[in-house]
Every structure is written in C-alpha cells, then in structure tokens.
C-alpha cells in the first residue's frame, strides 16, 4: 500500500509542481477571461444581482453605432504606427550615434534613458503643465519666438490631442528603445566594420549594410513590444485628456475603463474587452509568424 502511494506520488509529482501556478493561472487569468466573455452578453452594472441577457446586442452596437469605439480603434492604430515607426528610426539612430566614440557619451545615454525611469503619473502631470494652453511651456515658447499661429489648445483640440499624447509616449519610451538597440549594436563584431572600411564603405553604408541587418532580430522584437504597448495604451490618456474632447483621444483600454468603472456598463465593457483580447490575439499570432524560426536578440 505504502509502495503504491509512493509510486502514485512519484508518477504525479510533476502535476503537484505545476499545481500552484496552474491554480493562479486558472483563478486570475483563465476565469476572468471566461467571465468577461459571459458578461458581454448581458446588461449588467457590475455589482447588482440583476442582469438582463441580450445576446450579441453589445457587439452589434459596438460595430454599428458606437462612435467612440471607432475613434478608439483609429487612435490605437495612430498610436501603434507612429510609435513603432518613430521609435524604430530615432531609437536606432540615437543608439548608433551613442555607439560611436563621442565625448560625454555616457551622459547622453543617461539623459536619454532618464524618462524611462520616471513614473507615468509624474510624466503625465509634467506634460499637462507643458501643454497648458495659457501658461504652459510649449505655448509660451511658441509665442515667444513668434510662432503664435502654431499654438493650440493641446489637450482639448480634437485634431491635435491624440498626437500630443503620442508625443509624450514617444518621449517616455525612446530611452528604452535606444538602450535595447545599443545592446544589439554592441553585439555586432567590430571586424565587420573594419572590413567594410577597407572595402571603402562610408559611415552611412556601414550602418545600412551592417548595423541595420544585424540588429533586425532586435528590431522585430521591439516592433512587437511597441504594438502591444500601443494596444494597451491607457495611462497617458487617463492622465492628460481623459479621452476628450468628445472621445477624440480615447483608446480602447480607456473606453473599457470608462464603461466599466465610471458609467457602470460592465456588460458593454466586457464586450469591448473581448474585442481588445481578439485584437491582441491577432497581433500575437502575427508576432509568432514574424518570429518563427528567427532568433530574438534582446
């Protein structure tokens, strides 16, 4: 008997080892996803015992009537495209420059990385001041140098606000991209540059034909990270504009927060969450296809 118990324990010991992690996964990830999917078929305020089954109505409303959702999708796309493109180009260029032998190189590196260490809340409040329409640093500077026509109500102009927030995101993220690119560039064997120089390749050609291709694995990984961050963007919108004016700077994650916690439309927020999950899944599949068989250099 004792021998059988021991053999059973030995046979199932792998299960015992994974059980704590499995329970946490089921309780805090799998179950909330299932519950969110279930809740999306109901009108429910999130706390009362009464809920009304409405089938797919939330999804129909979302795709046919909800102007805020369309704007959120648009803004998430802006966010993803702009951040990935700009950070790829400038992150790489700054890293390439800081990989050269220049004076005060470490000081420049530290300065670029500094925003990454700051809390997003602090960043939000700081940029809120910078964007102040009357006394803010940006408008004040523009006026001082005669660019009055460029002054905008940065956080309440429907044509400008989302871009103003994306700029903050770029500022806050650039240091991270630079550091990762820098690590990748330092892994490129210096011999390759020497050989290229002997063959007559200029600085730009060396960068284009050696540094860019040899850091492409890192670049792809950063693209995926950038896309995921763009899909989940929330904090800066919350801090700077609360999605306004009239949804102009809303993103999906912020819309979910608004619906779930400020207007108590938990059912509708669940439908939005399901859509966000599907979008994330598509990006993840894209990521898997992109990286299949390739080595990630991070």
């Amino acid at each position, binding site marked *: 008997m004792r021998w059988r118990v021991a053999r059973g*324990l*030995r046979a199932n*010991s792998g299960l*015992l080892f994974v059980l704590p992690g499995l329970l946490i996964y089921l309780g805090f990830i799998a179950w909330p996803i299932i519950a969110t999917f279930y809740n999306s078929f109901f009108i429910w*305020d*999130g*706390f*009362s015992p009464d809920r009304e089954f409405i089938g797919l109505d939330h999804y129909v409303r979302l795709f046919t009537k909800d102007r805020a959702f369309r704007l959120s999708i648009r803004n998430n796309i802006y966010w993803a495209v702009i951040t990935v493109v700009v950070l790829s180009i400038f992150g790489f260029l700054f890293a390439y420059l800081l990989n050269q032998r220049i004076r005060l190189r470490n000081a420049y590196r530290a300065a670029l990385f500094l925003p990454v260490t700051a809390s997003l809340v602090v960043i939000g409040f700081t940029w*809120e*001041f910078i964007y*102040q*329409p*009357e*006394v803010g640093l940006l408008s004040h500077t523009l006026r001082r140098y005669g660019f009055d026509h460029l002054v905008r*109500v*940065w*956080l*309440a*102009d*429907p044509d400008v*606000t989302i871009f103003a927030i994306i700029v903050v995101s770029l500022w806050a993220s650039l240091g991270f991209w630079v550091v990762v690119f820098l690590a990748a560039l330092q892994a490129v064997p210096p011999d390759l540059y020497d050989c290229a120089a002997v063959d007559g390749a200029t600085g730009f050609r060396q960068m284009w034909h050696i540094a860019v291709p040899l850091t492409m694995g890192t670049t792809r990984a950063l693209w995926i990270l950038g896309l995921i961050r763009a899909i989940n963007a929330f904090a800066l919108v919350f801090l700077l*504009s*609360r999605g*306004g*004016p*009239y*949804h*102009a700077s809303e993103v999906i994650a912020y819309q979910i*927060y608004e619906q779930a*916690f*400020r*207007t*108590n*439309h938990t059912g509708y927020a669940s439908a939005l969450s399901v859509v966000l999950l599907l979008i994330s899944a598509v990006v993840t599949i894209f990521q898997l296809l992109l990286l299949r068989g390739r080595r990630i250099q991070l």
Partner: protein
Amino acid sequence: MTDNYRKFVSRREFLRLSAIATAGATFAACAPPAAQPEQAAADAASAAEADTTITLWSWGTAMARYRDVEGNDIFVETLKADTGLDLELGMVDHPDMAAKLKAALPAGTGPDLLNTDFDIVGPFWGFVEPLNAWGEAEWGSSWKEDLFSGAALSEMEIVANIVDLPGESLYLPGNMQLLGWVYYWIPTFEERGIDPSTFNTWEDFEAVLQAFVDDDIAPIGGYSHPATFVDWFKSLVEITAPGQMAEVQVGNGKFTDSGIVTAFDLFAKVHNEYMQEGAIGAQDGNAVREPFWNGSGDRPIINIFTGTPYFGFLHHESEVIRDAMNNHVGTFLLPGAKGLAATDAGVAMVAASERKENAWEYMKWRTLGPGAEQIASTGQPMGAKAIEVPPQDTDFDKNLGEPLLEAMVSGDNVFRRVLCTDVYQQLGVVLPGVTVGQITAEEAAQEVQDAFDQSCQQWVKS
C-alpha cells in the same frame, strides 16, 4: 550522478520536506492560543483603542474647511479633540470616486463613511445604511423636519425614492451650495461702471461680457472638469428652459426639446467667446483662477457655483485668496435664472461598516455638531437649521454672505439638478464636443437622451 547534480533536492526529498512543512504549519495553526491574563488584558485594551478608529473617503475640496488661522489643515485634530475618534481619511479625486466605490463597496473593503455627492454616489446608495432608526432613537420621530432645512430635505426625499425606500434617510446633509451664481471682482466692475443689479436679462449680461471681449479681455475663467461643465449647463438650462431639467428627468419632455438644445449652444458660446482661450481643456483650475484672485482685471468673473470650493475660499490657506473673498468679491444670480440650492456634501454610513457607532458619532459631529459649526464659521451654509453662518465682520457679509444665504433660505430651492449618473457622465463628454465643434447641439442632446433612455429609467419611476 555527478557531484553537481547531488547539490539539488530530489523530487522525493522535496515532497518529504513539503509534507513536513505542511504538517508543521497545520499543527501550529491548530494549537490553542497560550494567552496569559496580562496578554488578554493588553489585547482588550488594544481592541478598545482600535474602536476609536473611523475611515472616511472624501475628495479634497470637501475637507478644506478645517483650517486654523494660518491656513493649516486641522481636520483630524479637531475631530479627535471633539469626539475622541481617530480618523483615517482616504482622499480620492472627485472624478475617480465612483470607480473606487464600485471596486470597494461590493467587495466589502470600503470605508465606514462616505462624503456623498449625487453625481458620484448615485449608483451606490444601495450600499449605505438606512438612518431613520438611528435618527429616531437619537432625536425622536420628527427628527428630519426638526433638524434640517427644506432644501436639504427635498434632496434626501428624492434619494430615498430612487432607492425604493421612500421616507428613509440614507445620509445626513452637510454643507449646502447654490448654482447659477457668478463671482465677480468688484473693483473691476466699479472701474467700468458696471452695476450687476441692473442686469435684467441674459442679454444684458452678454452685453457686458462682450464689452470686455472688445477690450481683449476674456471675462470669465473656465476650466475642464466634468462637474464644472455640468454645473454651467444646469445653470444655463435655467435661462433657456427654466425648470425643464427636472421635467425631462421624470419623463415629462426630452433633452432634445428645443429649450435644452439651446442650452448646449449657449454653453459652447460662453466657453468659446467669453472664457479664456482653451478653457474647455484647461485642467489646472488654480492657474485659471489666479488672475481673478490677483485682481489684475484680466479675469473679472469666475465660475457659476458656490459650493465646493468657493465658500471654502473664505478661509483659504492663501492670504491673497482670503483677502479677495473677504473684501473684493461680489456675486449675482445669472439674470433670468432662478438659481438652485442643493446639498454640496452629505455624509453616509456604509452598511457593511463594523464601526457603526463610531460612524454615527462622526456623522452627528460633521452635520449637526461642532464639526458643522466649524464649517459654518468659514462662511459655508449648512443643511442643519440650527447652524447659522456667523458674520465675518468683513465686506464678505455684505457682498457674498447676505445674497447667498438669503437665496439659500428663501430662493427657489426646487430640486432641478442632474439626477442620473449616466446623464451626468454623458454631459461631461458631449459638452466639450459641442464646444469644439465635433458635434452639434442636437446630436449632443440626442446622446444625452439616449443615455437617459438606456440607463436612467429608475428616475422616471421615482
């Protein structure tokens, strides 16, 4: 098997160790407590000490009226001295309060007490303690009428009806506010020969505003806050369609009726033409108000409501603001409006609280006792009948105190605020949209009506 491998714990050893640890922990948990008499006494003393604690969630400006003459915050100390209660104050930004309550109240992790505001507590009345039994035990059956003003009671009745507990009391009214009253800088008006008492119509007021604009002065300071937007809108509805706000919220009419649609356009006009550039997106209210307090003449008018934090400014920590409130600021009701009186902040007891006696003590102190008298001493009218605002012996009494307190008692105190939280939230979204031209007033009104139809039917029932 290499030596390196032997350094790791085998599966068998791991399971054995786990079993021993689990058994040990179980024995430890099941062992009887070996408390000594001295220890028990110490525990009891500790428990008694813990019993003086009380937790309250509030937003900052609602707490700003407990300051000493130097402007230092003395709220916690005052409560302790008066009642012996130890307050743990949870400060939550007003716009974030509803979200935080939603997470905490159903989970039973909320505070003992809430500062209430219709705009944010609306969906959560079901989580607060009914107070009739407490009140009757303390003061007798007619306690509400005996203790509180008509304006305060009318709001209490509406809340009770909404929660399907007609006649019940779900909070005690604290300080009161008025809507539709403008604050203006007296010296600037005097220099220009403007006498607000001559404003008979909204057009009279607009002519004055336009005169400022013609002199390159944006006369009104405005800033971006959902409550400010809604307060302005409610005040303007009282000009374009007096009384209609109350009617549409009980099903008599719609937000798309022409009078209310006009209020959307008027809101946009006030923000675009008479407020400083970018008012609709100016998030720092202090920066907006600063030129007003400085009396530079660049911003002779600010806001439209006299609750949080305007009465509180009378005893503000800034000497400049205290001086302004006491000597240079006047007020008038928007011409054409009747004005509104409402509770600015009441106090509710959370039903799940395990310290209800303490909570009740706090409520009495804050709404009827020394805590309420402290607020009144700062120029803030209270819902309690017996507590009057004492004279400040400055020009405040003549310029602000007299007209506002008179309006509080004898004005038109019919309850015409935005009642349903969804309507409130939707107004906060669409009003900036109309102002910056993203949507028309008609579209905005339709969205508000849709929000009402979708989520606010209980108000019709009430």
